[in-house]
């Protein structure tokens, strides 16, 4: 169970397996089938990507980091998953296929354990009540009023327990974590031990001796249900309440462009903290755009290419290691001394780029505003009068899109965002804005500033590609100074945690009447 540390994220539609331990080790549900259906299908669909990227000409395609439009090869459609993939996903899926078999076993194993435990726990009180009637009915004392009252209490408590367990454990799993969720495992063990001890007692003291006092047996069953409710309370406290109080401040930095955020977390294990951080990542961090990093990479390449150090003494030198060390030092010294004008280039390049972006943005804003003036919402009365040439939002969007398409395309190309938005998505967004009476500025907002990753299409999410890299065990708790990495395909998130300090507050009482003032003055008296 602990062999893999692949952390595959949550994907709601996919039929892929997930090492999900969070779901229902204590679940007592009987309606598993409906949730199972959505998860058990393992089919994979490979379609031609329907999304035509905005940048259509092949001349510039070479610049792009990702090639969305590889659509010449269409392969067979199997199954009915809504997942549509691009080239990178194919590579990942082959990797997934190898992992999936192991993870599937894990998941089904825990699922069966949880179901068995749930059934055991739910049926035990009923068994306690029914067995005496089956085994020694004639010797059993009849159930009086108080005893029957206890039946009602057992019934309602069991109902409450069922609802509470449904509320707490019967939720769609958010993620697949690499290791066992320690608290859930502990709770499952506790419940199991508890039920077993109750059965032992019941078996020895009641079944063996065939106790006639039925009221006592019913009270015993009621005490079991009460104790189960208390264990559920313990589960709420351990699983939900304990991490609510913020205890650590974590600093999350993206390794490629340095975007940093800080979050407050409670006392969590490292894997749960990683999950919480990733959920925040999808909402807060702007989408990762590899095209923006090319400039610094080219500068770095130029630095390296500037100097070459040759070893004129030939190979096979004994002090090779020391020589390499002194070589690198010589390079650094020479690089520091030489007159490098690359900072100049950078400055002018950035100023030029800024100017270009602003000019294109101005053109874009004007084009969009003009395009929006071409359509107007039709009122109810007018709808009856002039039925001709009436369009629904989609058609209206398609009608005004060509007038702004060029300006938008140029702007996206300048800000290197063209691979994030396809023509289809832009038209959809335009139709959406028209339907909701948004202004041109509101329409443009999602293109002018890069938004969080969730705003873009699924292939930018990469939700299944996260790996948790940590020196400490991932089920150990967060401590002051914990550092771990969350690696995705192109970048990684570096997470460091710091403990929120213990705050000592003292009080000082101020009497409201003590606020008195005098004028500072220089008075002049004549004598």
């Amino acid at each position: 169970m602990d062999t893999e540390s692949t952390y595959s994220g949550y994907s709601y539609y996919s039929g892929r397996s997930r090492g999900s331990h969070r779901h229902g080790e204590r679940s007592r549900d009987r309606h598993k089938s409906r949730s199972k259906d959505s998860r058990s299908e393992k089919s994979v669909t490979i379609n031609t990507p329907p999304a035509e990227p905005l940048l259509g000409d092949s001349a510039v395609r070479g610049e792009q980091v990702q090639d969305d439009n590889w659509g010449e090869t269409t392969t067979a459609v199997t199954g009915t998953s809504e997942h549509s993939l691009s080239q990178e996903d194919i590579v990942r899926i082959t990797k997934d296929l190898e992992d999936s078999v192991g993870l599937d076993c894990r998941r089904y194993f825990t699922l069966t354990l949880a179901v068995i435990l749930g059934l055991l726990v739910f049926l035990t009180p009923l068994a306690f009540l029914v067995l005496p009637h089956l085994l020694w009915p004639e010797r059993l004392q009849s159930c009086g009023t108080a005893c029957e009252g206890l039946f009602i209490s057992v019934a309602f408590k069991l109902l409450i327990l069922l609802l509470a367990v449904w509320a707490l454990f019967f939720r769609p799993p958010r993620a697949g974590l690499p290791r066992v969720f320690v608290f859930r495992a502990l709770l499952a063990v506790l419940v199991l031990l508890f039920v077993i001890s109750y059965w032992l007692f019941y078996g020895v003291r009641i079944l063996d001796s065939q106790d006639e006092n039925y009221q006592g047996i019913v009270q015993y069953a009621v005490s079991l249900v009460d104790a189960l409710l208390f264990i559920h309370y313990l589960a709420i406290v351990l699983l939900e309440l304990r991490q609510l109080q913020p205890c650590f401040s974590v600093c999350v930095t993206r390794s490629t462009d340095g975007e940093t955020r800080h979050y407050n977390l409670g006392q969590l294990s490292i894997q749960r903290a990683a999950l919480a951080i990733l959920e925040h990542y999808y909402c807060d961090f702007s989408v990762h755009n590899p095209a923006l990093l090319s400039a610094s990479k080219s500068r770095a390449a130029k630095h390296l290419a500037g100097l070459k150090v040759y070893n004129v003494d030939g190979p096979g030198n004994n002090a090779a290691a020391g020589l390499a060390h002194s070589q690198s030092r010589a390079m650094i010294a020479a690089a520091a001394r030489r007159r490098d004008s690359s900072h100049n280039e950078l400055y002018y390049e950035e100023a030029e780029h800024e100017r270009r972006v602003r000019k294109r943005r101005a053109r874009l804003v004007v084009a969009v505003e003009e395009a929006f003036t071409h359509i107007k919402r039709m009122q109810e009365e007018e709808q009856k009068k002039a039925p001709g040439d009436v369009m629904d939002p989609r058609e209206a969007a398609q009608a005004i899109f060509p007038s702004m398409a060029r300006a938008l395309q140029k702007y996206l190309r300048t800000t290197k965002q063209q691979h994030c938005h396809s023509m289809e998505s832009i038209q959809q967004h335009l139709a959406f804005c028209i339907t909701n009476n948004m202004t041109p500025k509101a329409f443009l907002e999602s293109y002018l500033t890069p938004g969080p990753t969730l705003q873009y299409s699924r292939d930018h999410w990469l939700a299944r590609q996260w790996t948790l890299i940590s020196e400490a065990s991932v089920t150990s708790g967060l401590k002051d100074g914990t550092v771990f990495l969350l690696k995705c395909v192109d970048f990684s998130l570096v997470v460091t945690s710091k403990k929120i300090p213990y705050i000592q507050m003292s009080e000082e009482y101020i009497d409201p009447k003590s606020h008195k003032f005098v004028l500072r003055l220089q008075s002049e008296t004549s004598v």
Partner: protein
Amino acid sequence: MAFVPGQPVTAVVQRIEIQKLQQGEHLILGFSIGGGIDQDPGQNPFSEDKTDKGIYVTRITPGGPADVAGLMMGDKIMQVNGWDMTMVTHDQARKTLTKKKEDVVRLLVTRKSLEDAVKHSKGCYPRK
């Protein structure tokens, strides 16, 4: 004219004797004072050191007894009839100067030009 706490204050002073003038039922001296340990020293336009809380002459009635006696605007009053004026409140200074029973006040006043004159006569800074 700044003072160092704990050290005696030294200054070059001029003795000025003013005869009080009877005006109606008051005896007036013909000048106005400002300053005092209960006042804001930063607002004193005449002091060199803006933490100096001494009593300064802020206005002189032209032709009055103080003018006749040679008191000048901006003088710091160090003593009045033997009573110290460097560490008094404004009101105490006023009362000391306007005692009804006295009709003469002998002031010790200091000003910057006195210091400069002494220094010049000692030849401390050579004039070119």
